[in-house]
């Protein structure tokens, strides 16, 4: 993969300037999507994981629809957190193993931009499918059509947030022993606000309070992390590669 | 303690034990480091004598 990346990334800073930030971003996203398409099983694993976890809860709790309707937002959101967790380990690991990451750090294109591209690709591959399949799973829990819409919307705002925050944890635990378990220990507490506002939006809609407040707070968190998370991730990657 | 003895002493007791154990563990850690450094040093000196 090293060659294909080198071909797609600008070789000099002058070239990078000429290409513009957007095309660098697009190149990284295109490359990661291409890689993901070649390894479909990895993409499908986290999606199936999400579906299975959500389907397990009624088996553990019982099929009472009144109860399921109440726990649905929380179950779907917690399952989304765990699914994101599962896929995060591979965010930088393969690039780290084959040396591509080192080339990225050395490349004249700003590392923050490359990292952003990888995060966007990660979301497209693992976050977006969850958003799309969520209403189907929501139906299993007898959610009303409007609640299903809010669920999709909250996941649409929330899952990029999960990828952004998770990228920091993935970069920090890169090449560290016991990385997978450690990653969840570091990242899950940081996911709590996303969980509260995301699941809360759906609950507020069901109870007739309106989901606007929750959703706008979730969006504010997303805006905040778009600025800070790539910076923290970049710093962590540089430390890991020192 | 007006019926609350278990809860009050449970709180203060555990806190006292925890706050007493921490310095003891730290002292042990400090002694362990110094001991291993001393051993290293005496090993070095013995080696110096034989050579």
């Amino acid at each position, binding site marked *: 993969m090293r060659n294909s990346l080198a071909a797609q990334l600008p070789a000099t800073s002058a070239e990078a300037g000429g290409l513009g930030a957007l095309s660098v971003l697009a190149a990284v996203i295109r490359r990661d999507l291409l890689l993901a398409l070649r390894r479909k099983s990895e993409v499908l694993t986290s999606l199936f994981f999400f579906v299975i976890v959500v389907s397990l809860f009624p088996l553990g709790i019982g099929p009472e629809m009144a109860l399921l309707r109440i726990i649905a937002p929380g179950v779907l959101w917690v399952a989304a957190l765990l699914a994101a967790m599962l896929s995060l380990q591979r965010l930088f690991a393969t690039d780290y193993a084959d040396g591509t990451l080192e080339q990225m750090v050395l490349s004249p294109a700003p590392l923050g931009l490359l990292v952003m591209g990888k995060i966007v690709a990660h979301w497209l591959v693992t976050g977006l499918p969850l958003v799309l399949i969520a209403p189907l799973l929501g139906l299993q829990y007898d959610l009303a059509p409007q609640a299903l819409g809010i669920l999709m919307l909250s996941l649409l705002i929330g899952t990029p947030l999960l990828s952004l925050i998770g990228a*920091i944890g993935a970069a*920090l*635990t890169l090449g*560290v*022993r*016991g*990385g997978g378990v*450690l990653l969840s*220990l*570091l990242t*899950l*507490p*940081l996911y*709590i*606000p996303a969980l*509260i*506002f995301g699941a*809360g939006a759906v*609950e*507020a809609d069901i109870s007739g*309070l309106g989901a606007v407040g929750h959703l706008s*707070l979730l969006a504010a*968190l997303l805006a905040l992390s778009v600025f*800070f998370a790539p910076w*923290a991730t970049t*710093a*962590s990657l540089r*430390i*890991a590669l*020192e | *303690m*007006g*019926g*609350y*003895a278990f*809860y*009050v002493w*449970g*709180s*203060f007791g*555990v*806190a006292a034990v*925890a*706050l007493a154990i*921490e*310095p003891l563990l*730290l*002292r042990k*850690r*400090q002694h362990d*480091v*110094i001991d291993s*450094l*001393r051993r*290293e*040093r005496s090993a070095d000196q013995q080696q110096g004598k034989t050579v």
Partner: protein
Amino acid sequence: MNNKIIHWFKFGSPQSFYPLAGKMLPWFVALAVILGIAGLWLGLFVAPTDATQGEGYRIIFIHVAASWMSMFLYAVMAFWAGIGLALNTRLSSMMASAIAPTGALMAFLSLWTGALWGKPMWGTWWVWDARLTSELILLFLYLGFIALQAAIDEPRRADKAGAILALVGVVNVPIIAFSVKWWNTLHQGASISMTKAPSMAVTMLWGMLLMALCLWMYSIAMTLMRVRAIILERERHSDWVKHAVE
């Protein structure tokens, strides 16, 4: 002025801080013991029995102090970690690593005493009260920091990675606290607010203040002890450590 700056930076090196920490240690231990005795005497013997909570309220003398310290220590830890990352000073990073376990202990004590307070007052060991929940998450953040540093063998990488985690954590702590409070008010029926603290007599307030100061001094003493051990462990191959051990 210039001399003064140099003087202070001198203690920024582990080599000169090690003996200094050793000299300061007994003073902070003594202060912690004195303040602790005074605080316990006020809290357990002088402070009057509370009208609504009886003698059970006396748990707050340790509970509130431990909670305050757990939050304060996280901020101090992030501060030292950030300084270590920005200025590349080894001692600051060692301070951050030395604070973390004591901070985690404070968070644990806060939860433990909170549970023992909750049982007689609310009839249950655990309520999903906003403050207790935030405290639990704070404990998780401490454990994450400790686990990350423990998993990285190379000390400087452990310092820097821990620093980024601590900084991300310290930005997140207010957000988490706010979100948990928001969540708690939305689910008001499920829990009882802890804000209905007993109206404070002046002696109670003094007892709490003394206990908080006691734990503060205790934390400083433990941090100094731990940082001394960390310095020896990390600098074991340097000449000054070999001479200091003699």
